[in-house]
Every structure is written in C-alpha cells, then in structure tokens.
C-alpha cells in the first residue's frame, strides 16, 4: 500500500513520522488478536477470517482504516485548516439530527443505520471539534488568557458535548472534556483545571466512599475524611506553588512557618483519629473540618498581612472546596429522589450494583487476574469467552489482553500507548504554527483520556464509563474515528517544514 505512495511523493514519505505509524500498526495487530480472543471459538475452526464473525469483520474495519490513512496522507495538509469550520458545523448538524435518525440500541440514541452498518457520529465528531478548536485558537491575537477567548474555546467544546448527552451517550460526551488539557497548554490558568479536577475528585471520592467506615470506626466516613485530607493537601500544595515571597529574607521565615503549618495540621488530624480509635469512638472527621476552617482564617490573616492576592484566592479555593463537598452531598442525599440518586451513582459507576456495572468489573478482574505473568496464550483465554460481560470485545477488550497475554502483554500495550502519547506530545511541540500544535494536543488528549478511563475501568480504578480503547475495541466507527484523528495530525506534521523547502 505504501509502496505505491513512495513513487508518487517521496518527499512526503520522508517527512512522515514513521515511529507513530509503526506504533499504530503494532497496536492494530494486537487489537485484532484481542478481538479474536474475545470472540473466536475453536468449534468454528477456520472462521477467524470469516466476514460473518466479529474477528473477520474487524479485518474489514482495519483494512478500510488503512485505506483511509493512505487517503488522508495523500491530501494537501492545508485542506484541513481551510475546511475546519465547515467540518465542525457539519458534525454539529449531524449530532443534532442523530437522535431523530437513530434507532434505539439498548437505550442509546447515538447510532445511525446506513444499509446493514451502523455508525456512531459521536466517534467522528471529535475530529471536527479538534480541527475547529485548532483553527480558532490559531487566529491572530486569540489568547485563552483573555476571558472572552477562553469562553469561546470552552463553548466550542461544550456544545458538541451537550448534543451527545442528548443521545444518552454520557460516556462519549465526557471524552470531550479531555480537550480542556489543550486549553491548559495554550494558556488557560492552571488553577481552573486544578479546581475542576479537584471538584471531580471530591465528588467521586466523597460519594464512592461515603458509607465506608474510616479505620474501622463506624461513626466516621472514609469518604468524608479523605476529602478533608485532600483539601488540606491541595491547600498546602497551592501555598507552596503560588506564594513564594520575592524577598530573600522572607523566604526562609516563610518556609519555616509553612513547615510549622504542615506539622500542626498533621498533628491535629492524627490526634483526632487516635482519640476516636482508642479513647472514645466518635466522628473525629469534624476536627479536620474545624482545622480546615481555621486554615481558611489563617490564610485570610496572611492575605491581609502580606497583602498578597494569592492567599485570598487560596482561601477562597479551600472554602469553596468545603462548600462544594457539602452542597453536592446535600443535593445528592436530600434534594434528589432515591431513584435519581441511584441513577447518578450507577452513571458514575459508583453504585455497588452487582447486576450491572459492578458485576462486569468483578468479572473483568477475575479474567485479568487469571492471566498471570505470561497469560494463557493467543485464543486460549476462557474467562473472556464466557460472555458474562456483554461488552467483551468492545469496552472490556482489555480483559482479553490481560487473560491471554498476561502481565507482560498488558505492560507492552500500556507502554506502547504511553510512547504514542509522548511521541505525539513531541510532534505537537515541534509544530511551527499554533494550528498544528493545538490539533496535535487535541489528538493526544483524546487518546490519553480513552486509555485512562477504559483501562482504569477494567482495572476497577475509574468509574465505569463505556468508551472504547483506541485500536483495540471492536467496531468500525471508533477505529475509523481514531485513524482519521491520528493521520490528519501526521499529515499536518509532515508539512511542518513546507515553508523552509
């Protein structure tokens, strides 16, 4: 396939990033093996390539993806930039129309049927959003450090997210939040990203561990205590990062007072816990809450004394964190109806629901655990063939890798993904123009998010959000989507030194 290309455009071939293409091909091959593992049976011998089987169909998707990749590399690299608005608007229109055209597949309205195939526009729309974001951010004078520009950037991301939520595909919508990393790279204040991530962590940790006792003491909630501790850690961390005094004399004094502060907090927390454990069992987490309150007061005092805005902002962050935690807690437990509470917990993958998501995770862990160091070998896995996990060859495909290829195989796959992401990071940074850089960051953020959530969910570390593992999960829509995303970037990258030539 590529040999033909060679004769036509040798210079293009030289500037393509072959390392990325190599990783892509290796991941495709490993992915196909996993789909075989998840769906192949001995009794149907010979059908591994049969187009009526999933593994056979996956070959069709892989073949067409390679063709797509070839097609994209043959296009002029400027075409993406010039068409980006049209592509974005086109995808918005398609996403808007999808719920009306879609036929209901297990409650989701995100699949459009074309002939005998179904496609999921949400998987392709990432491409349009990435292009549009890159185009808008490369406009001369556009700077996300301005509030107005930041809001435009956020709106570009949130709009398609909303449309996908309307298709009842919350998982696919959440992927777009990865693009906030791009805004961060381009200058969005780090504290916004930090605050947003903190909020998610407080909420998930708080809800997930709300009913687990802390240190075996029934009165205390592990989630509550952990969130309070996190607030202390984040606050001190922010102080260390943002309030370095400018004058040298102050810095020594400042660092010793900070050491004292950390020491005091740790002592108070530990004393409260020990008291609850050995003297009188009570909810000692409230001592931590009070400590956090005092911390806020201390920060306010510092902001007045040192006349530094940063202290005030950190105080606001700490106070906001405590407020956010209690208000979400209150809304979840007192305002919402019980069935809505359950819905939210299940949606976040937090509900201990052994019939639904929780059961899948248990099965996944058994399958992965049974793989051991070297795994059972290609097509020898059995746990993943039992079909007790419905999304065996799509969202839970990593189980098959774990079972058949073992720890070694998993490590290889994860390290390949890491190499791919770091390589894309390197490629993005070497772009001469903002457009290429932003687009590159979009691509790597999306890959990072997919790997983070998908593998984390199979390992029982992140909420169960049904999104595919790039190049592994069965299905044409996701494979095509990722291929288009990746190769468009490679094509843009290949034209990076067009001006010099």
């Amino acid at each position: 396939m590529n040999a033909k290309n060679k004769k036509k455009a040798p210079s293009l071939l030289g500037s393509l990033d072959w390392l990325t293409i190599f990783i892509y091909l290796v991941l495709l091959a490993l992915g196909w093996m996993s789909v075989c593992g998840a769906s192949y049976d001995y009794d149907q011998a010979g059908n591994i390539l049969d187009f009526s089987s999933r593994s056979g169909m996956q070959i069709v998707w892989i073949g067409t993806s390679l063709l797509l990749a070839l097609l994209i590399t043959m296009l002029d690299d400027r075409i993406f930039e010039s068409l980006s608005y049209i592509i974005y608007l086109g995808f918005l229109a398609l996403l808007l129309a999808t719920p009306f055209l879609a036929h209901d597949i297990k409650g989701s309205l995100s699949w459009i049927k074309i002939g005998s195939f179904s496609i999921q526009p949400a998987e392709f729309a990432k491409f349009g959003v990435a292009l549009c974001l890159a185009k808008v951010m490369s406009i001369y004078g556009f700077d996300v450090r301005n509030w107005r520009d930041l809001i435009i950037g956020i709106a570009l991301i949130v709009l398609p997210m909303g449309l996908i939520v309307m298709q009842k595909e919350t998982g696919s919508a959440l992927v777009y939040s990865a693009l906030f990393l791009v805004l961060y790279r381009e200058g969005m204040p780090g504290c916004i990203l930090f605050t947003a991530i903190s909020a998610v962590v407080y909420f998930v940790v708080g809800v997930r561990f709300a009913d687990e006792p802390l240190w075996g003491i029934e009165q205390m909630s592990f989630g509550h205590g952990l969130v309070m501790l996190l607030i202390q850690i984040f606050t001190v961390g922010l102080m260390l990062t943002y309030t370095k005094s400018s004058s040298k004399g102050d810095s020594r004094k400042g660092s010793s007072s900070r050491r004292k502060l950390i020491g005091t907090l740790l002592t108070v927390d530990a004393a409260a816990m020990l008291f609850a454990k050995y003297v009188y069992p009570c909810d000692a987490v409230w001592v931590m809450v009070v400590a956090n309150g005092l911390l806020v007061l201390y920060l306010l005092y510092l902001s007045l004394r040192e006349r530094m805005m940063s202290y005030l902002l950190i105080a606001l962050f700490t106070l906001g964190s405590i407020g956010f935690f209690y208000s979400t807690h209150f809304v979840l437990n007192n305002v919402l109806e019980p069935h809505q509470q359950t819905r939210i917990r299940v949606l976040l993958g937090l509900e201990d629901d052994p019939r639904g998501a929780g059961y899948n995770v248990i099965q996944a862990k058994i399958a992965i655990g049974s793989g051991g160091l070297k795994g059972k070998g290609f097509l020898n896995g059995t746990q993943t063939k039992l079909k007790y996990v419905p999304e065996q060859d799509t969202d839970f495909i990593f189980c098959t890798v774990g079972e058949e290829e073992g720890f070694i195989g998993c490590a290889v796959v994860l390290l390949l993904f890491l190499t791919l992401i770091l390589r894309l990071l390197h490629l993005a940074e070497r772009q001469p123009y903002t457009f290429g850089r932003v687009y590159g960051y979009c691509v790597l953020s999306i890959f990072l998010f997919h790997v983070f959530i998908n593998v984390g969910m199979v390992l029982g570390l992140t909420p169960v959000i049904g999104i595919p593992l790039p190049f592994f999960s069965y299905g044409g829509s996701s494979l095509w989507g990722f291929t288009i995303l990746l190769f468009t970037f490679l094509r843009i990258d290949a034209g990076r030194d067009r001006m010099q030539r």
Partner: protein
Amino acid sequence: MEGNYELEKRKYVIGGTAVVIIIVYLIRLFTLQLLSEDFKISADSNAFLKRIQYPARGAISDRNGKLLVYNQPAYDVMVIMKEQQGVDTLDLCESLDITRDWYERRMEEIKDYRRNPGYSPYTQQLFMSQLSTEEFSRFQEKLFRFPGFYIQKRSIRQYNYPNAAHLLGDVGEVGPKDIEEDNYYRSGDYIGKLGVERSYETMLRGEKGMESLLRDVRGRIKGRYQDGKFDVAPIPGRNLTMSIDIELQALGERLMKGKLGSIVAIEPSTGEVLCMVSSPTYDPRIMTGRQRGKSQKMLADDPHKPLLNRGIMGQYPPGSTFKTSQALTFLQEGIITPASAYPCSHGFHFKGLKVGCHAHGSPLPLVPAIATSCNGYFCWGLYYMFGNRQKYKTVGDAMTRWKDHMVSMGFGYKLGIDLPGEKRGMIPNAPFYDKVYRNRWSGLTVISISIGQGEVNLTPLQIANLGATIANRGYYIVPHVVKEVQGMPLDTLYIRKHHTMVQPKHYDAVIEGMRQAVLGGTCRAANSSSYEVCGKTGTAQNPHGQDHSVFMGFAPRENPKIAICVYVENGSWGATYGVPIGALMMEQYINGRLSEESEVTASEFEDRHLYKIN
C-alpha cells in the same frame, strides 16, 4: 509571544500526567496478576462453573384475588459444547426419548451463530426445554453418564381457568431480536409473548441471579467460589392483579361461543377493564411447555383468526351507538338543543340523497331520536353543523372541529391500554376528504359518518370507552387490564382523567335518550327490575355480508358500575345478539350471578352459533 516559553513547560505537566497514569496502572496490574491470591485459582479455566439462577415469574390474579396464572417446576436440559465430547449419543437419545436425527439437528442449531447469537462453547446452552417431572427424574438417574449435560430448573406457566387467553398471553423462548435489544436475555430464556405477559414483562420476569461454583479436575462441583462472595441471588418477579373479573370473562366467552366478535366491559369510575372477550378464543393451557409451537401454528392457520384480540385489534363501524357521540357534539357546538326536532319520513331525503330509516313518529326531538335510533335526526344535525358558515369559515373547519370532538372522546388514536397490539381505529379528517373528493365535498358528501358508518371505524374497546365516558358525564380514564403491580405504583396514565370537549350538562339528554331506549325503544330486552340500565343499539351495515349487531350501554344510571360494548359480527340487528348478551353480562357483574331465568337464556345463546365450529 513572550509567554510561550513559560507555557511550553506545561508539556511536562501533561506528559508527566500520562506517565503517572500508566505507572499506576502497571502497579495495579502487577498486584492483580502476580500478587493477588484471590484470582490464582481462576488460572485453571475449568475450575469455574457459572450458573444462572432463574427468578420465579410473578403470579397473576383477577380483581377478586382468584389466582389465574402461577408457576410449576420444569426442567431444561443444558449442554456445554466443550465438555460434551465422548457422550454415548444412543444412550442419551433413549434417555430423553428423542431420535438421533433430532439430536444432530439440535446440535447444529446450537452452534449456528445466526440462530443462536449468544453462543459460546464454554457456557451452558439450551438443549431441550421443559421436561416434565417424570421425564426429569428418568433423565436425572443417568445424568452422570453424560458429561457436559446439566439440568437447569425452570418454571412453566400454569393456568387455573381456560379463559382470558388474549389478556393473559403466554411465555415462549426469546428470539434473536429480543436478545439483541435487551442485555437481560440469553438464548433459551423465556419472554412474555402476548397479553400482559408481554406488556408487563419487565415486572413479571424479576432479576436473574448468578452463582460461581468451583469444580475439581473431573468436573465435579466442590462448592461455591469464595463462599459465594460474588454470587448474586435472583429477585422474584412482581405479582400482577388484573382488573378482570374472571367469572364475568368466563360468562362472556360462553355467550360468544360460535360467534365472531368481542365483549368489552369497563368500570367507568376507574377505567379498569372488567372483561375483554374476543371470539373465537382458545384455552391458554395449550400454549405452555413444548406443545406451544404446535398450538401456535394451529391457531395461526385457523381462518377465524383466534389469535386476534378483536377487543383491541378489530376495527368496526360502530353503527348507531356512535349517534350518542354525535348528539353530544351537536349540543356542545350549539347546533341543536334537546328540544330541537327534525323530520324523518322513513329516512333522510335531501337533494336526491337518501339515508333510510325505520318507521317512527316525525318530527322528533333528541331524546326519542336516540331511543328509536332515528337516522334522519343525526343526518340533519351533521348537515347543519357542516353547513354552518357563521360558526365555521369552511366545511374543512367544521370537519376539524368535529374531528377534535371525536378525538377528545378517545377515538381515532390508540387509547393506550396496557396490552400489545392495540389498533387506533379511524376518524376521518378534512385533509383526508380533500384528497378523496379533490376538495369538492360538503356535509352531504360525508353524511354517513353521523350514523357511525362510512369511514368511521372504532375498536370495541373504544365503543365501551364511549359508554364509560357517557356514564361518567364527560371524562374517561385510559382503560387498563392490570389494577395493581406488586410493590409499584400504577402508571399515572391509568389514573389521570381525560375530559371530553363536551360540558357535563349536555350528557343528561343523551343519558335520558339511552334510558328511554331501554324502557321503550330499541333495547327493551336489556331492561332490569333491580337497577336502571341505559343503552344504545347499533346495526352496522356490512357490505360483505349480514349486518353486525352492536350494543353499548351502562348500568346503573347513577353511580355506574359497568359500561359495556358487545359486538357480534354478522349478528344482524343490534337487538338480536348485542342487547341480550349485554343484559346478561351486566346482570352477572352487578348481581354477582345470573337468575335461573337468565341462566336459561345464557345457555340458549351459548348454543346459537353463527359459524360452524370444527
């Protein structure tokens, strides 16, 4: 672009995040795959046997608590393809009383992905379903000789009464489409196919459980994995209480024997369906167990279509019963008052158009017009309504207003009963006639809709619901056959009142007309000494044969307990079949039994057949 160097450093934050995530995941994998004792055991793939535990399906009882449907144990033979090699086929076939041929065909079917989409050679597949207790005990003794074969305890439905087959429905094996649409089902599972078994499937079925068992090298079960830590107990399905009175249903089926048609009775104040007879019917007991396929085919081939639930799927011209809805519309629109009288000389004659009528006094006001079922009166009413250019700009506007009235009475659209397959009937609208008559039509063109003929079609349920609406003086609650789902509130659809566009005061004249029809008009046979019956007959013209006999009524007049529609295909006059059958049904429900005299009449009607029963 000075700040860009500072920003470029952020690549380390992003890259660092990726590195940290992957390292955390590698540690997690390391503990899961290499350190955890929990999962060591699963390294041997055959150590596990996962067995689905099926919940008991919910029971169904009637409105008086009489048990209608319950479960009886049955046994499925399951097979794990990977384990069954080397079985003595001959011995197996003998033990199960099947032929070698059947065995081989069945094995092929199991392995066919198209027919059995959830197939896996590692899990239990259904080999043979619903063995009786005797068959089971015979097979159980030899089971040890057939490795790879297992017994799965299931249940089959048992019916206490031979009635209400259309309402109760049945259960059968899931098809490939069901499996694709709902993750709950696996090949070989059962699903409700018709009636409430289908419409309340998700409540009746409960939740499956799962147990993980451990086996030794020879495949013998040694116990539960981790003492059942990962086991999930099944949750039994919810019980249903139907609004049906099974005695009334049984009487209805008896009276309709040998006739085609339907009886639908509704409790007006609640919208609860008291009975829904569709004739011909069948005994639900023939649809259980392994005979289901054969019975299904037999019923499907019957020219009288016993599988059709005529109560909600039959769309018939309502005939003169429809005149009540016309009277209400004309009163509300101010076209007539109860005192308005129209002439009728053996029918409606105008500009060469003639709609015939029988002999009665002329001109007539509203009450006797309903009581004697005068065609002329309602033709004039529609003519004046559609011709009224002060009130409606065009005939199309009048038609639209008329259609809105009809829709508000529950016609033209599905009512929304909790049974699958309801039909919507037909209420024409202005665009419909514009198309048919190319915009050249008037009230005269469509005059027959005023007497429930022409394009108008209703289901017997909609006619009965009209009776309920009149009995309630202006509202109805969507009819439903399930009164209560155990541990769940009833859908609000079945609680909310739907008001018609007609004010309650206009109902009095119509009710008086229906009362007079019973006292001295067309439905004298429905009169009862112990309660006040109101009724309206219908004789629906049928171009394909003998007219259809229709009765719509309710009783008692104040605080009505029952509204009813009787529709007998090819039964000729409304008074011939509709009225007497309706009278017996009302008596049974209101008095709780039939008098001796009525019992004789009932037996008479049971034996009067309009078609030959084979």
